[in-house]
Structure formats: C-alpha cells, structure tokens
C-alpha cells in the first residue's frame, strides 16, 4: 500500500525525532562516561563528590551540590557539600526522599513546598528555590545527591531524565569507593592482626600473608613466597592437616586443627588453625594463632600427672593404669605374661639421715637411671614414693626371665654411686610377682610383689624373692 503524503510527513517527523533524541542521548552519555572515568580514581568521599559535581555540571546547570547519607532510618545528613550553610544541617526522611531512594529522581520546582526542605531553617534555603534530588544506591548507607539553584522551576522533566541516566553511574562510583575503602580497612585489619592470616592456593603456595608469619615463624617475605604451606607443617602432622583440607570440601563452614609449623630456626611452633575452603576461587583461607606455650603447658601438665617429679619415672597412677592394661591383655592372651618387680632400697633412710635429703634425692635419681638401663624400652619403671620402685616387665612368662632382670639390677647397683663427692654403696630388696590368671586387679599383683619384697628384706636384704602363694599366702 502506498503511503499517503501526511503519513510520509509523520514518518519523516518520527525519524527526525528519533534521530535527534538518539543524538542527544549519545552526546550526553559520552559526556557522562568521559567524566565518570575520573570518578573511579577518587580515593575519598570529598574527591569523589567533587568529581561527581564536575561531571553533573557538564550536563545539568546548577549552583550548589551536596550529598546526604542516611544516619539511621529517620535521619540523613550531609557528608559533602559545596555550600557552607548545608554542612551542619540534619534532615528527616519524608515523601520526596523516600521516593528518591526508591530510584526516582525528584525535581523540586519550589523547595519551600517540599516537606524535607521545610524542616530546614530559612537561612539554609533563603538562596535556594529549586532542587534536583538523585538517589545513590551503591553505598551500604543510602545516599542522595542534591543540586540546587536560586531560581524557581530551574529543574524539570529533562533534568530528571538526565538524573536517571546519571544515577546508576554515580551509584557505581560510590560503590567503587566503598569497596576500595573496605579493601583498605580489610588490609589494615590484616596487618594489625595478632594472628597469622593468609590466603593459599590449592597447591599450598601463599597468595597473601600478613607480617605475623614473619614474627612467629621467622621467615621473610621471599621465604614465604617460595615455600608451600604444606612444607612448613611437621611431617607427623601433615597427613592430618591434608585430611582436614579434604574435609573442608564437604562443608560450608571452617574447620579447626592444631599442628606444628617449622620455624626458620628449624624448631616448631604449635599453631591453632582455622581453615576455610573457597573452591570457586581455588583458595584456602587460613587464620592461625601461635599456641605453642599453651600446648607445651598442657603437655607438661599431662606429663606431671603421669610421672614422678623427682626421678621422671612413671608415678603410681600411671603404673596402676599400665598394670591394668597388662592384666587385661594377659587374660585375653593366655600365652602373654608379665612380671612385677617391687624394689625397695636397703638402708636408704640411714643414707638420707646422714648425708642429707639432697644427696638422698640425688641417689634416687641415679638409682632410677641405673634401673632404666637394665630394662627394655617396652618395660615400665615407676616410683611409688619414698624409696619404693616398680618394674613391670612386659611379655615375660618364666620365673627365670624375671629373676635374670632382678639379678641384673643387683649387678648394676654394685658400683658405688658418687654423690657430691661421697661414694655411696646401695642395694635393693626385690619382690617378684608373675602374672597368673588368678589376678583380678592390679592392686593384687602389687600386693603380692610387696609381700615377696618384704620376704627378701627379711632374708637379709640385697636379695630377690619370687612370690609363692604356698609360702606367702593366697590372694
């Protein structure tokens, strides 16, 4: 169908309108984009604000400008302004600001009618008649950019449209500044932290680390950049650490692990590590705390609870526990046996009383060393208290084996001990109890060995006696 002349005229007008509109939009967009490139370089609010003002000025004519940022759900206050009068003001949300923050720029042809402006003192608005309000949604705290003019009806629909195009770009600039600020703050926390913090690739190489790694482990930046985190971990702890990393892949939360990390000086520090796995980044995040002192203290406490503080041998509590294990095992394994040797030093009280407690203590320590040298590593040596010692011989089933050890102990006690220039001769009476199925508990074994020891003492000391229920009574 042929177009009629009036249709051709209309089509021509439409074409011209579209062409002009697109031309205007292109020019404006190019102007905005050019200006916004400078905005992204802004490092602080004031610089960003001045850059925003400059860009907006290139497309909209105005006199002053300010940015309001929400303080709470009701109040909003200036964070930057080209006008001194505005700087100390506080504003309350009403219909216009709510509409602006909902994404609709609002031009006010007469600010003296706008609820938010009416709340301001006359001195603030005496030279302002119209305003354009633009919501900036990029920041965590909602913000509004306001530009003003002394003439009424200065801003209209055209400026609102320009503001709509400007707002997303300005919001993005504000968001960028917020992110830069957040990164700076995070970096500050990162460096201020008392904990070791790091980001590590899945192959263990450091992507980021703070200075605490250097402070705690002694490595410099080059050391850490060239090392794998996994290589720093004590060989005995590495498998457990890697297993924890594996488990991270199946959980959304962080996992905790304590392990030893090697220092530059080759010693180890215990680090308590909180680990998180961000698979999409192929990175592990690690925050670690040096807990060496705590671990060592705990280990010391655990050692003290099981050992005699004077000699370092096991104490009664640990002995009874081990004896219980041996008894239980012997009941399950009929071929397994053990022997308990109850040792009591002969004439120790006289030595203690005559040479003093210090020498007495030294004697006990020297005695401990000698009997340790006479037994296997698997055997248990304990001090019950005073001058009474126990040797638990593991995997011993014959009287001869037990007596051989007892005789060996007598032999190693023959050379005198030199204690603070005093040559001291010492001997021990030894009672021996062999494991049998009749023993129900550790105390019974200990009791029988004690009886045998007293028999040895009665027989003239420096002897060993094997407990015989027929001779020494039935338990």
């Amino acid at each position, binding site marked *: 169908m042929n177009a*009629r*002349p*009036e*249709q051709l*005229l*209309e089509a*021509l*007008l*439409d074409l*011209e*309108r*579209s*062409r*002009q*509109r*697109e031309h205007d939009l292109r020019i404006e967009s190019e102007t905005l984009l050019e200006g916004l490139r400078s905005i992204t370089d802004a490092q602080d609010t004031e610089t960003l604000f001045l850059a925003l003002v400059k860009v907006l000025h290139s497309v909209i004519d105005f006199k002053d400008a300010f940015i309001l940022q929400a303080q709470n759900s009701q109040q909003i206050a200036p964070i930057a302004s080209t006008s001194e009068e505005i700087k100390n003001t506080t504003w309350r949300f009403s*219909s*216009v600001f709510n*509409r602006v923050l*909902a994404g*609709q720029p*609002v*031009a*006010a*042809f*007469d*600010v*003296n*009618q*706008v*609820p938010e*402006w009416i709340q301001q003192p006359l001195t603030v608005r005496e030279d302002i008649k119209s305003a354009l309000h633009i919501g900036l949604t990029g920041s965590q705290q909602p913000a509004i950019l306001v530009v003003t003019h002394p003439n009424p*009806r200065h*801003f*209209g*629909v*055209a400026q*609102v449209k320009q503001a709509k195009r400007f707002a997303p770009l300005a919001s993005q600039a504000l968001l960028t500044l917020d992110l830069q600020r957040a990164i700076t703050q995070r970096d500050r926390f990162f460096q201020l932290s008392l904990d070791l913090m790091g980001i590590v690739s899945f192959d263990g190489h450091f992507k980021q680390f703070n200075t605490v790694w250097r402070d705690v482990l002694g490595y410099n930046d080059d050391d850490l950049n060239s090392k794998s985190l996994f290589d720093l971990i004590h060989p005995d702890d590495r498998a457990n650490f890697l297993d924890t990393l594996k488990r991270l892949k199946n959980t959304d939360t962080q996992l905790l692990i304590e392990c030893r990390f090697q220092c530059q000086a080759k010693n180890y520090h215990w680090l308590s590590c909180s680990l998180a796995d961000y698979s999409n980044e192929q990175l592990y995040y690690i925050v670690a705390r040096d807990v060496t002192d705590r671990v060592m203290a705990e280990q010391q406490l655990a050692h003290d609870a099981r050992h005699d503080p004077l000699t370092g041998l096991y104490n009664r509590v640990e002995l009874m526990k081990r004896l219980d294990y041996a008894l239980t095992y012997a009941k399950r394994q009929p071929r397994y046996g053990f022997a308990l040797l109850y040792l009591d030093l002969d004439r120790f009280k006289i030595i203690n009383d005559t040479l003093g407690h210090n020498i007495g203590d030294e004697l006990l320590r020297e005695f401990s060393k000698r009997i340790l040298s006479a037994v296997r590593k698997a055997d248990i040596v304990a001090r019950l208290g005073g001058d009474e010692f126990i040797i638990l011989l593991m995997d011993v089933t014959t009287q001869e084996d037990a007596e051989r050890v007892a005789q060996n102990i007598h032999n190693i006690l023959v050379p005198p001990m030199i204690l603070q220039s005093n040559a001291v001769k010492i001997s021990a009476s030894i009672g021996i109890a062999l494991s049998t199925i009749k023993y129900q508990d550790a105390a019974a074994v200990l009791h029988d060995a004690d009886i045998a020891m007293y028999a040895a003492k009665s027989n003239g000391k420096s002897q060993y006696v094997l407990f015989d229920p027929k001779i020494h009574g039935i338990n």
Partner: protein
Amino acid sequence: MKIATSWTTNSDPVAIANAYENLVVQLGATPTLLILSCSAVYKVEEILTVLHSYTPQAPLHGSTSCLGVMTQAGAHTKDGCGLAMFGIQDPEGNYGVGAALIGEDPGAAAQRAIQAALDMANCPGAVPAMVWMTAAPGCEEALIAGIASVVGDDVPITGGSSADNTVTGQWKQFTQNNIFSNAVVVTALFPSTEVMFAFHSGYEPTDVKGIVTKAGGFEATDEKGFATKANGRMLLEIDDRPAAAVYNDWSKGLISDVLADGGNILSRTTLNPLGRIVGYIGNVPYYQLSHPDAVTKNGALSIFTNVTPGDEFVLMQGTIDSLVSRAGRVASSALETYSARPKDVAGALVVYCAGCMLTVQDRLNEVVDNLRSALPNIPFLGVYTFGEQGCFLSGENRHGNLMISVLLFSK
C-alpha cells in the same frame, strides 16, 4: 504498574458498579488512580455515588466525551451512551487530582488545580513526570500556561477538552468529590515507570510545491497568510481580507454558501483545517491545527484555538482514511520515538478529536483496530474531545484542534 480498563454503554448504576468491579478484578486491587470518561448523557452524580460506595477517597479524574468512548475492546456508544474506566494500580507511584472553576482568570484556576493535585499526590513542590488535564472548552491555552507557571515549562501536559453529544455545553468535568461544567481538572502523575507520549496533527499541507522556501523549513502551501486582526478565537482577517473569504478561496469554495450570512461550517472543514508551524524537528516543520467551526456575519472565522496577529496559517488537508488510521499511527509514533516495544507498555490514554470522530463515525471500529494493531493486547482508553492538548517532542505543550494525543505508561 498495572493498568486495566472496563466499559459499559448502559447508564444504569448497576452497570456502572459492574464495570468498576470488573476493573478491580483485573487490577487485583483498588486503583491508585481512576480515569473515567463518559458521554454527557450520564448522570455524573450517580457515577460518583457508585464509586463512593467502593472507594470514597481514591483519586478520580473524570470528564465527558462526545457520544461515547473507545477501549481495546471496541468503540463503545449506544444511543449516545458510553462510559469507560481506566485504572492504574501503581503503589510505588504518586498520583493526585485537583480541580478549580475556571472563572475570570483561567491561569489562576489552573494554578490552584495543579497545586491541589500535587498536594493530593503527597508531592508538593515536586515536578511531576506528566500532567493529564481536562477542561471545559474555551481557554485551554491559558490553562496550559497556568499549569506551566507552577511546575515549569517542560512538564508534558496531555489531555482533551470535555465534550458533549450536541455541542450545547452539556460537558462535565469531575473528581471524586465535585462535579463541574466549567472547570479544569488536572492529575499530577508521578508514576513508578516511564511515560511516553506523542501529539500529532496527521494532516498535510495542501500544496507541496511551496516546500522549503524559508530557512530551515519549508513553506507548506501558497495558500497562506498572516492573521492581521484577531479577537481571541475569532479570526477576523487574513492578509487584510476577511478571514472567511480567504479560507473560502484557499479551499476552492468550500464555504461559499455561508459567506454572506454566516453559519456553521464545523463538519465540512474537518478535512481542511488551518495549520500553524509551531516548531521544527530537524528541518521538518510540524503543525498545530485550528478547526474553523463557524463564519460570522462580518466574514470572520470562529475557530477552537486562540489566534494572535502575526500568526502564519497554512491550509491543511486530510482524508477520511487518514483520520481512521491516525490514532494507531500516533501510538506507533510514541513507541518509536522512545525506542519502546509494545510489550513494554502497560496501558495507554488516547485523545481523539471529536470532530474527527464524527467524520469517521461509521468507521470507528477501524480506528480501534488500528490502535489494537499498534498496541496489541494493551488496555487503552480513548476519549473524543472538543480540543486536544499535548506536548510536541521538541518540548512545547500546545492546545490544538483535530489533533491526536497518545500517552503510554510503561510497565
């Protein structure tokens, strides 16, 4: 943003209530703004009573339309009776309706009306995205100027003068609380989405040989002249000759039978209005139309727009076919101008000159079809008016005759 329309050709209050209920069902809620248009035979008091029973305080912008209305469902007129509602559901937008009796000072009345509308929208002092206006015919230019004096020149003003079925002043303007016959009603629109608009004459200059004789434009026809004596809407002389005689010469004797004694010429001049260049888009001029409705005994032309000495007129020419297709073309133009697609549009308001409507009365269904084609599956309300107001894209708000104004709300 959700928009729906409903209609009836029955003046019974029950039918009106049913239409309102239908609208609410489509919207899923009470409308944020209700625009209602009906032919002047409706008793507006009854309409308001019905609406009050549902929603006493909802903003209502009402006016009468010539013979009936049109919606996407068709042209609605039956024995001079037709009513349609256009509901906007936009909780995130702000809308307010204000009205004022025109009285002696139309500009001041328009100022009061827009101020009231802004207050009702809870946006006092704020520039609306658009103003929708309805007024009694007679002083629309002053009303537009009055609105602009409050909100500024660049706020688009769109609307149509209220009309009746017999051109006997039975027109009405109304709001949720008041009914007027000589008032201006305005709605300040702060929608949550974009608005798009177009305002076209749809006529061509009568002679193409005069094109581009003035710098930056083209002279549309040899048949042009300057109004040398004017009295409001009375065109007394053109080129120092009686205006009616000049028009008769230009139109080759179209009104020769009334030159001597005067008479009504409204229907016969619909296809040959007078045009004034009101601006250029690029190098292309666009026209504001004036519809001669009568010849006076002293040889003057009565028209429906103001005219002042120094205005330049061009005889324009249209066809029945062009009047039928124009509304759809203007709607398409609004879309094209904003690079929008029909699926982006929630609804449309169409202002269609009553004079044109009367000329193409038998082909109104084709007018609706053309609109439906341009705005597929989009609800629209079309009103037939005694004067059209709209905003040319180069920015001016104008009142004209035989114009078509389309306002689109995006989703």
